């Protein structure tokens, strides 16, 4: 039987990722909760950032979690899509910016 590596139910296992390293796991969750809950930025703003990062990082669990969170927070579909475009533009931008290395080498090596 074919079993996919990623299963939606794996998301439920997220609270257990501290297994085998509980002390580090606890520190991670403290940090995770502090970083993602409302501070100077609202929960809404942070959830949109998280959604953009999740799509850029191709993490199906985080895309699931933060799409649901954005829906719950009343974020509009077009606002979510705008956030994804920011992520996409950043990826395109940093890809092209790295072409600078290529261009520098070309310019050094070519007669």
């Amino acid at each position, binding site marked *: 039987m074919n079993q996919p590596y990623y299963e939606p139910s794996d998301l439920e296992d997220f609270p257990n990722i501290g297994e085998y390293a509980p002390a580090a796991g606890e520190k991670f969750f403290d940090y995770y909760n502090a970083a993602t809950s*409302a501070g100077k930025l*609202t*929960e*809404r703003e942070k959830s949109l950032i998280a959604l953009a990062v999740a799509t850029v990082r191709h993490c199906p669990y985080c895309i699931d979690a933060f799409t649901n969170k954005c829906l719950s*927070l*009343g974020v*509009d*579909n077009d606002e979510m899509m705008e956030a994804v475009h920011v992520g996409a533009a950043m990826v395109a931008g940093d890809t092209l910016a790295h072409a600078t290395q290529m261009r520098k080498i070309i310019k050094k090596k070519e007669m």
Partner: protein
Amino acid sequence: MVECNKFDIDGAFAVQLGKCGDYPLKATGIDTLQMNITRRCNLTCKHCHVNAGPDRAEKMSQEILSRCIKAAEHPSIQTIDITGGAPEIHPDIEMLINEMEALGKRILVRSNLVILLEPGYRHLMGLFADKKVELIGSLPDYRSQRSDRQRGNGVHARIMEAMKELNHIGYGVDGTGLILNLMHNPAGAYLPACQFALESEYRRVLHQEQNLFFNELFCLVNCPVGRYLEYLKNSGNFHDYMQTLNKAFNSKTTGFVMCRKTVSVGWDGRLFDCDFNQVENITVNSGSPAHISDFEFDLLSKREIEVRNHCFACTAGAGSSCCGTLIAD
């Protein structure tokens, strides 16, 4: 191995309550009499848990209304929560409000607000204001797209219009004593975020963009019964939704679920623990007949609540009720 779906088993909620020592769940008094006076409604919302609509004819008879008024004389009952369908459609709503006001009760009317703009119902705004009726207006979202997906095209704009008129006579405006609370419920198979976060967003958009006012926002977790249950099943979301509710179970909410202090009366006079049990046809289990004509306050106020798996909607996260979340987030 085929995994057993635990939500197919009746009693998962009861088991969960048992784990935290709260089974059986018992009423601790009655401070609210909820009256579902009609199933008729001018709208046919996709999420409607009571399956209301323009074709429904069920309505409370004068005999049942009088029985409710009699029951409401009990001094412990402070709040009369009038709902439907669209309760404004009931021909005796004015009489009911006058009688309950004469008894000195706090009166809540759950309104879709747009009915108040229809010919024949507009005068009710004045009556409500006069009798200091608290309005709970349904507004699933602060933007039209999601509201209209749930309630029908153009409904959001009409709600805005009704709010404007209500604000004009003082509803939702500080210092007038006229309460206009709004009810948010998700337009899909997900849970609402924390009430505080959504309320500030509603306020920002409604106030800054439309100059509209309201008092508080209540968040309601959609209960998997009625038309909403059909939607969950037809869209393939039922299992996920139940799992989400189950995961969000919060034992701190069980002391505050609304059935512990409410009795809900159906249009035909039958008594229920809540509106949701009403839709599921699960009458109260108090030891006396489950009908308003046998309203036994003492027995009802310590009855055992009839819990089912849809109760998970009341205990998710900060908890949910017809008056918003149950505990501070």
